[in-house]
């Protein structure tokens, strides 16, 4: 290969590495985005990033924020904490970002928070959120997304709409987040008068049959899956393979209507499948959804899902925070600005996303969806969760 060709390839790679970093001007807002684009949960995080990227592209094409464009540096952590920390340091030191958005699973976040607190860089996660965002919130860390503990409790509250009584079986892989979700789900359903059973399996499980068989033998009135898209597809097919035809609830940890569709196809039936979501789904009628779908069409994003919605809402949040921060935005002033954000998501969540000095998560809204033929249909209204009902340990 000639030197010219190699240089050409290297240039192309560098050019693709960030949205427009090479052409960043002094007055542009520089922000970072870190997520898992190649690791085990890339299937969930990639559409979330695409949703965020889509919002920023559309915003920049509208002229940015008061004429200032937003420049995003994107880095892939592969779901590894060491890579996430290295990416955050690089973005702060080389890309000179004001704040970092996105982030991947909870296990990668704590070391990034520790490093960013040293330099006062605000972090806004989406999926997943960790307890550091709840009151008394830790400095510099915020989340607009799904927190396992809160989701677990919301699912407990929704149980009556799925099965009136009996045993609820929670399934998860053996992880900190999974155990947290299961614990809060258990406490919430027991409070509602259900009995509880649970099946934990190794994180790196590929064949789910024995775990589904164990769950089915518990004779559940409903099964709740606390894991990502791929586990849901495998478990639902395996559960239906055991002859269990009862309700199955997908917790929205990286799962979307695409997950339900795949699971229904693999299981041979979409009957009795539910999903609980923090965000609206593309078939919902909301002004924000119309904006998203129009942008997706314009920029060539095919079949946006609720994971795209997740990223899009984070983009809305970033715009609002930067707008509040003003033209001479610094890391410190952005951090303060975020604490004052009250974002109307135009129907993409059940209510506004609100931050304050002491609460970096705010109230969250959850909705139960039922799979009907080929789409998710909302069951009743959004449920507002303002605080955890049960202790965290």
């Amino acid at each position, binding site marked *: 290969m000639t030197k010219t060709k190699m240089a050409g390839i290297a240039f192309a790679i560098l050019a693709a590495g960030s949205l427009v970093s090479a052409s960043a001007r002094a007055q542009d807002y520089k922000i970072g985005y870190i997520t898992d684009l190649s690791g085990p949960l890339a299937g969930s995080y990639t559409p979330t990033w695409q949703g965020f990227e889509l919002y920023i592209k559309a915003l920049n094409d509208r002229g940015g924020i008061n004429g200032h464009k937003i420049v995003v540096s994107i880095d892939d952590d592969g779901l590894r904490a060491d890579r996430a920390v290295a990416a955050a340091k690089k973005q702060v030191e080389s890309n000179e970002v004001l704040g970092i958005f996105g982030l991947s699973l909870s296990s990668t976040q704590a070391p990034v928070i520790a490093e960013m607190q040293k330099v006062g860089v605000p972090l806004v996660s989406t999926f997943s959120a960790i307890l550091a965002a709840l009151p008394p919130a830790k400095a510099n860390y915020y989340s607009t997304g799904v927190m396992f503990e809160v989701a677990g409790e919301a699912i407990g509250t929704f149980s009556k709409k799925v099965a009136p009584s009996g045993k609820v079986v929670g399934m998860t892989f053996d992880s900190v987040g999974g155990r947290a979700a299961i614990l809060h789900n258990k406490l919430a359903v027991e409070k509602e008068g259900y009995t509880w059973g649970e099946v934990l399996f*190794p994180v790196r499980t*590929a064949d789910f049959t024995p775990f589904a068989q*164990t769950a089915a033998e518990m004779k559940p009135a409903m099964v709740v899956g606390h894991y990502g898209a791929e586990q849901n*597809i495998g478990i639902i097919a395996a559960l239906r*393979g055991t002859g269990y035809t009862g309700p199955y609830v997908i917790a929205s940890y990286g799962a979307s209507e695409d997950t339900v569709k795949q699971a229904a196809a693999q299981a041979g039936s979409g009957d009795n499948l539910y999903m609980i979501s923090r965000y609206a789904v593309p078939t919902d009628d909301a002004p924000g959804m119309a904006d998203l779908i129009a942008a997706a069409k314009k920029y060539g994003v095919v079949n946006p899902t609720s994971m795209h919605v997740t990223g899009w809402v984070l983009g809305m949040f970033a715009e609002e925070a930067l707008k509040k921060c003003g033209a001479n935005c610094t890391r410190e002033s952005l951090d303060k600005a975020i604490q004052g954000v009250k974002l109307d998501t135009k129907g993409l969540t059940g209510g506004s996303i609100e931050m304050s000095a002491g609460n970096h998560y705010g109230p969250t809204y959850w909705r139960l969806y039922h799979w009907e033929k080929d789409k998710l249909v909302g069951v009743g209204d959004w449920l507002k969760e303002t605080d955890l009902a049960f202790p965290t340990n």
Partner: protein
Amino acid sequence: MELFVSILALGSIYALLAGGIVIVYKASRVVNFAHGELAIVGAYVFHSAGFLTGATLTGPSLLVTIAISAAGSTLFGVVIYLSLMRRLLGRPTFVAAMVTIGLAIILKAGIVVIWQSRSVGIAIGRQPLYSFAGGGRIAWIDLVSIVACVLMFAALAVFFQYTPLGRQFRGAAENPLLAAQRQVNVNLILALAWVLAVFSATLAGVLFGSRSMLSPQSTIIGLSGLTAALVGGLDSLRGAALGGFLVAAATYLTARLISPTLAETVPFLILLVVMTWRPWGLFGTLEELNRV
């Protein structure tokens, strides 16, 4: 009974994986660490081919999909041999083993780039074949997995025992230099080994994707296949079959009777015990181990 059938079905898939690893090892003394990736990439190709031939994989569209996948895996086996493994002939076998690790990384990256890490299932054979009175069912795919495994191993046994090419394969595996001197086309034998390995990996991947689902993480089944091959003996097809069923039984019985969270650990415990007690595996030969 449901548990027994599940073990047989998963064991069949692991046996197919182990069989592919053994074939390559027998022919070239190379341990193929990319076997799980080959299986899952093959299954993703099958899934994509299925979309091209028809939304529902039934009848003619299923047959065309199978034909495309079989042809694709055969071609890919030849490409791997010609582009990578042939260049390493005469080099220490650990170099080739390292190359298979590189191949595994590239194939996994391919899943990320081409299929965007999407989790997909292959929706064939999930219909119940038999329902037990006390609950539990056997699906068609369970039966298909077992039958496919039996047919594959029977075909390999016939090929190696009764065909001229199979006998040449065994001769080349035994002593490549002598075989070459006797006009055996060793390159053809080695290419054939990779073709058979990629084909069996693809078959295993498709069967696995039909009973579970596919994602980049699914490549972990390669580790189960390797464990099965090591437990059975790296140079024994009979050992590969037994190893596959042992690993599946250990996984299922641990999950159901001891603790689900230990299910993936116990097969490796068995591997440690076998490797300590009989490093050449249950049916492997000591001579082969010494050669390595």
